[in-house]
């Protein structure tokens, strides 16, 4: 710990303190799209991406372009009144695709409300995400089918669910068997703000004492709505877990290759019985918190400009172009495909039907519940009577 001369709440020296640690970050692709020989800490992780081919890199580039395009379309749909709200992932594509692509089919992910890129990697139909933000559904997909839990809005809750799920995986002897299709890891996504929640500390405690096969994947996008992460921590977030007995690592979250490597290392550790890991993916929320937010009230534009230079997609494109792994035709193809997906999405979004009102009584319980069932009957009778005398509207 450095100086403890704690000034009044919000004293500006704190920001400087947290950022001094940025040099311990694992990076494999520079913002300029160079892939230097790994040294130092990155060397340890290089083995995890040795098998990554140009084709794989092109695949991750494609994922990121599609996800960004889809995200932009969703923002536009919100502006046009088709969605009630949208939480954009702009700037976090590499953190999400890199970690999402590190997962195996038998793994299980617990997202927040912003993990559209991970959802894409898990095969969740983008329309299902839109249904949620349109106000047409409260869930929308089958978690078991995709190994991807429902979005969680209450900050931090899902980290405990992930830990419990991982405890179940352990009890099912799906850890440390050495069978590649059997051993499973669980990954819990969370934001920098979320690290302050009691639930997250409790998840760290549980996962540590039970050695649960879970990875805490914290996307430090620097902001929790209007609060910079200096309001949540006085140490770099990846150091937060060591006191719980959980190793922490900071990765350049705008570097898809490094994120893939670090998440692979962490998930493989979990699958093999090595226990939990805390990954801090250092990234940036390029847009507003959600479409309801106005970031000009609390952050300066220059900060955003600075992060534009570290764009997660541009660096992969530069690398692919420079190394000759992809040509203009490839980039144009991906662009066209993303456009096509966005166009289809726009159509399916607009066509999403409103749920039938009486569906609010559905699935509240697995078995009949007399009071709720009576309420549904009364409601339907009320509606039916109402339909008869539409003449007599009394407003």
């Amino acid at each position, binding site marked *: 710990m450095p100086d403890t001369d704690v000034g009044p709440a919000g004293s500006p020296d704190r920001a400087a303190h947290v950022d001094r640690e940025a040099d311990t970050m694992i990076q494999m692709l520079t913002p300029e799209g160079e892939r230097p020989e790994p040294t130092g800490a990155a060397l340890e992780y290089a083995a995890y991406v040795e098998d990554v081919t140009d084709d794989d890199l092109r695949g991750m580039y494609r994922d990121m372009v599609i996800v960004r395009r889809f995200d932009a379309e969703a923002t536009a749909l919100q502006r046009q009144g088709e969605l009630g709200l949208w939480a954009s992932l702009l700037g976090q594509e590499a953190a999400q695709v890199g970690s999402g692509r590190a997962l195996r089919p038998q793994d299980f992910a617990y997202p927040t409300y912003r993990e559209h890129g991970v959802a894409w990697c898990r095969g969740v139909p983008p329309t299902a995400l839109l249904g949620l*933000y349109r*106000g047409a559904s409260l869930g929308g997909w089958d978690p078991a089918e995709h190994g991807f839990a429902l979005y969680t809005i209450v900050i931090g809750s899902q980290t405990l669910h992930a830990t419990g799920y991982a405890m179940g995986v352990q009890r099912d002897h799906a850890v440390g068997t050495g069978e590649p299709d059997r051993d499973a890891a669980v990954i819990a996504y969370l934001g920098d703000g979320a690290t302050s929640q009691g639930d997250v500390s409790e998840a760290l405690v549980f996962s540590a004492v039970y050695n649960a096969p879970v990875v805490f994947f914290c996307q430090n996008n620097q902001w929790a709505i*209007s*609060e910079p992460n200096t*309001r949540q921590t006085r140490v770099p977030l990846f150091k937060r877990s060591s006191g719980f007995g959980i190793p922490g690592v900071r990765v350049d979250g705008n570097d898809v290759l490094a994120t893939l490597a670090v998440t692979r290392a962490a998930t493989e550790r979990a699958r093999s019985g090595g226990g939990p890991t805390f990954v801090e993916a250092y990234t940036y929320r390029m847009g507003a918190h959600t479409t309801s937010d106005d970031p000009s*009230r609390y952050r300066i534009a220059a900060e955003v400009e600075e992060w534009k230079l570290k764009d997660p997609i541009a660096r992969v494109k530069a690398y692919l172009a420079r190394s000759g792994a992809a040509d203009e035709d490839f980039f144009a193809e991906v662009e066209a495909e993303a456009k096509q997906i966005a166009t289809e999405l726009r159509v399916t979004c607009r066509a999403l039907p409103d749920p039938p*009102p009486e569906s609010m009584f559905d699935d*509240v319980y697995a078995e009949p519940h007399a009071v709720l069932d009576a*309420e549904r009957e009364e409601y339907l009778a009320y509606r039916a009577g109402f339909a008869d005398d539409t003449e007599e509207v*009394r407003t």
Partner: protein
Amino acid sequence: MDHDPKVVLMGEDIGALGGVFRVTDGLQKDFGEDRVIDTPLAESGIVGTAIGLAMRGYRPVVEIQFDGFVFPAFDQIVTQLAKMGNRSAGRVRLPVVIRIPFGGGIGAVEHHSESPESYFVHTGGLRVVTPSTPEDAFWMVQQAVACPDPVVFLEPKRRYWDKGEVPEGAVLRSPGDAPRPFGAAHVARPGADVTMLCYGPMVRTCLAAAEAAAADGTADIEVVDLRSLSPLDLPTVMASVRRTGRAVVVHEAPTTLGLGAELAARVQEGCFYHLEAPVLRVGGFSAPYPAAKIEDEYLPDLDRVLDAVDRVLAH
């Protein structure tokens, strides 16, 4: 805040942003970061530390960003905040105000439209209030801050956009300065046939229903704005029901064990011989708050309120 340097504001995004509803807009600029405190993202932490600050002589006014996010703080509120006065034989008083935007009707995603008032009303040691108009909000928040007890101050979020006259700059220096006592119900519209008991966001809905019923000659409805949910102003409620002989309770919260259950029981106990009809309740259903596209079917509206009026009048 000008008046009492011990008043501090705490919450998520209440500083530079002014809160997600801008209720604290500009206050950090005026009073500084020491008095308008952006907290870490941790509701249990916010309320728990507010309790400690209050024990040290401060008057924390905390903001919970949305109704659905008060639950991480629920333990601190019901096991600590509510009980301290009683446990300490009155030696410790915790003048903490917990402001919570509550209720639905704004087309939000889940956890942003809930009505958790019953949990707090059910907990001895807390006062629970909710204004229904800008003027009432203006005075009531000052009364809440002045109150020596913990106050859960529920702000009907869909009425944030309502406009009304307020005596700008007026400061509550003694209890008599406010037009209505803290804890008192208010007859928002006098009427002879049916008493409608409501609060917060439903007051405007009920007033509109009363106007509609008056316009088509169905009924002369008295609308009682409860304002305080704990304690309930039972004398005002009883006086009204004794006059009209009929009562309908309206709230957004689920009907099951909602305020309507309490009010129906109290009215039945206190006005049994004056009642011409059973007390009816109009409220949310015993299901989770639904997706935004169908929330209008969940929330009591003019028609559901008038339907209940028809039914009490039919007796």
